[in-house]
């Protein structure tokens, strides 16, 4: 495995309940961070495990290990005109795709 030179995600880990925004980073070739979550604000529902990020593991790079989180979104915040107020969606994000949301 090749050692990756990508910068470490040096921000402090998030906690359950933290509000986070999915970063809209440039991407190509491969990612597991869905387009429909980009820019959306959600809350950390759980911390799961630490592992390589898909952008590196998928290319056999021995990159940095990052914390993964289950992030919960309101469907109303993901889709324009979503008609049901209570519905939510959860998905899993590695740390580098998240930033603190202040609002």
């Amino acid at each position, binding site marked *: 495995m090749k050692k990756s030179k990508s910068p470490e995600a040096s921000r402090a880990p998030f906690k359950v309940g933290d509000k986070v925004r999915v970063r809209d980073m440039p991407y190509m070739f491969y990612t597991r961070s*869905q387009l429909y979550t980009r820019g959306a604000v959600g809350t950390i529902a759980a911390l*799961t495990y630490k*592992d390589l990020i898909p952008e590196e593991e998928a290319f056999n790079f021995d990159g940095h290990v990052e914390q993964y989180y289950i992030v*919960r979104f309101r*469907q109303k915040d*993901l889709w324009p005109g979503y008609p049901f107020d*209570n519905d939510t969606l*959860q*998905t899993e994000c590695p740390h580098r795709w998240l930033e603190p949301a202040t609002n």
Partner: protein
Amino acid sequence: MSHTHTHGSPGDTHHKAAPMVEEITDYEVLEIAVRELAIEHGLFTAEDHRKFTEWAESIGPAAGSRLVAKAWTDPAYKALALKDGLKACKEVGVDWAEPTGVGTPSDYMEFHVLEDTPALHHVIVCTLCSCYPRPLLGMSPEWYRTTNYRRRLVRWPRQVLAEFGLILPPEVEVRVEDSNQKCRFMVMPMRPEGTGNWTEEQLAEIVTRDCMIGVALPKPGRTADVHPIQKARRPVKSSHQEAAQ
């Protein structure tokens, strides 16, 4: 209809279709070629392939049904299932470390049970591929793998559920779980009315695979997931294979 063209070696002057002795597809040929080359080059052994096949043919949704039925009848087990999914699976005979000892390459060892409540209903998808808790539920159904389901469930969950015959009141929170990384999930539906004095076996019978994905609710008398079935041309030569639960 099923013949393929053989591309002759440079010495051939003809280029015509050779009828096959038995119907074999280009995909079968490719798979055999890949497998034999891998074995010839020492990448794995035929015994490895046989052993993993044995495991693949042993999995199915019955263990998941048992897990749910047990959780419905035993509050301590239910608490365990919600806290430590892997341990709960072991108690119904499923070890996520099998058959390699460290888990399968695609299913990993991060399993979580999602509990439905009167206010919350879960439904599972993998929008990126079709990640599925195989060790506990067996192979995913064809529809779960379609781009169609993966496109629509995250954005129009209630419409898709309605197509499965499931309509929920607006106050109920429908929570879609997009399992896009290494965690694997299963829905623990609520125990339905009218099953008060049922045995675990009776309860397990109504917890079908669709109930554990979240596209159906368990109901007395409902013991099968009914969908149209696309038959295979050369199905798996094994007694275990089932197209539906």
